[in-house]
């Protein structure tokens, strides 16, 4: 995955300025940054929800600039949006099926059974409406829904948002296990810098819509700027 000179925003309000970065296959990369830096906009632009003003996106050798969301799903990109956002008035199983909306043939590969094995709690609640789930279960459902289409790359928008610390640990353990088991490429956005640096091998820092730093997670953890502004040390 490669992003070159990306500019994007809402209407006439520019949010991202000349953002370039890359993620190698099966690599986990985190983008950290303060609230309002444009992290969510970055993911939404890659996923095709927000139109980019200029720049180019490449995935798996394809130029995916301006590709529609259904085509992106078919190419193997999935986004788990901020807060998970499962379909509240649909059952858990229907939510998961919606994950295959653009790639219906995957349902015949037993993907739901596999996901139920990884997330046994979702199996117990398969018939329940998503609105009856707890916050942690909703986030699990959203991640599982993103994985139904068997993506090569999954983008996670603040999976820790609004969850109790013990649940955040659980979610991150799941993400880590899934990544290793499925050989996923992961693009993670997180305000919770500790978790981001632990999961990712490399890290970019986004401030005011620009990438201001990049480096391996180890380098980042040692950086004075990161220590001061992000880790509160």
């Amino acid at each position, binding site marked *: 995955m490669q992003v070159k000179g990306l500019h994007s925003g809402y209407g006439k309000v520019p949010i991202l300025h000349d953002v370039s970065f890359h993620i190698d296959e099966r690599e986990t990369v985190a983008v950290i940054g303060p609230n309002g830096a444009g992290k969510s906009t970055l993911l939404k632009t890659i996923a095709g929800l927000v139109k980019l003003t200029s720049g180019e996106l490449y995935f798996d050798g394809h130029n995916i600039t301006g590709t529609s*969301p259904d085509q992106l799903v078919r190419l193997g990109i999935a986004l788990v949006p901020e807060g998970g956002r499962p379909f509240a008035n*649909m059952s858990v199983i229907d939510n998961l099926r*919606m994950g295959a909306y653009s*790639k219906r043939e995957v349902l015949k590969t037993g993907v739901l059974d596999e996901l139920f094995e990884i997330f046994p709690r979702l199996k117990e609640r398969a018939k329940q409406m998503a609105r009856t789930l707890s916050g942690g279960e909703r986030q699990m459902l959203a991640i599982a829904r993103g994985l139904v289409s068997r993506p090569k790359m999954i983008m996670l928008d603040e999976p820790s948002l609004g969850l109790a610390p013990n649940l955040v640990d659980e979610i991150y353990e799941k993400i880590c296990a899934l990544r290793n088991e499925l050989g996923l490429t992961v693009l993670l956005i997180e305000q919770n810098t500790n978790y981001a640096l632990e999961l990712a091998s490399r890290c970019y820092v986004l401030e005011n819509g620009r990438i201001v730093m990049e480096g391996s997670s180890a380098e980042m953890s040692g950086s004075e700027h990161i220590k001061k502004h992000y880790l509160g040390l």
Partner: protein
Amino acid sequence: MTETAIQGIITGVLMGMIYALIALGISIIFGVMNVVNFAHGDFVMFSMYLSYVLGTALVWDAVQTPLLTFPILLIFGLIVYYLIIDRTLRQLYVVQLAATVGLQIMMRAAALVIWRGQPRALQYSFIQGNFEIFGFQVLTSRFVAAVISLIFIAAVAYFMNKTWAGAAMRAASDDLDAATLMGVNYHRTYALTFALGSALTAIAGGLLMSFQQTDPVGGIRFGFLSWCVLALAGLGSIPGLIAAGAIVGVAESLQVTFFNPQGRLLAVYAIFILVLWLKPRGLFGRK
């Protein structure tokens, strides 16, 4: 007294099933697209005229005419969607309101121009007479209309719950951005929703023409009635919609039986206002 009342209730419940069918159209359009189609009642009026024209020309029974009016209304719904509704989606709410109210006025004026002011009715129906249940008279045409309405309500429920297109509609209704992420093209889903909602008025129109006449201003009554049903039912519950249809039908029927038939909507509006006041989300709804 009680017998007259029970008779009124039977008539009202049967009529209420058609109201529920009409309201189902407005309910899926509002529920999925968050669009209020003020012209919905006039779609019913238009469908009734179509049934009249086709029934007269082909010597068909009113109940048969939806075979043709259903596809016509599907296409009409698609045209209205792409020509008008799709352009108002990201606009101010007032633009949407002006667009559908304008459509309503246009349709009524067009009906006046084409069919003049006088009411039209189909001459003959092979569904005649009445039958008796526990000593109460039931008009066969009303009974058939209620059964067909229920069948189509069930068919729509099946469509929404068991097909990919229906799932896309439910997902778009819950969270448009998340649905888009799954690859749902909302323009297409909305177009289908609007066309389906419109085409349901074709069924209702055919059924209504099997026992009553149509006139150019009759649409507004069906529009208001379906809003009352929807307000009572709330969004997202099909059994709730059927129950609400029955309540509205019975209120109307009892008003006609015991009070002044001229003010047949009075009781309906009284219930409408009461429900909006006490339970603004409807009696059976979820949102």
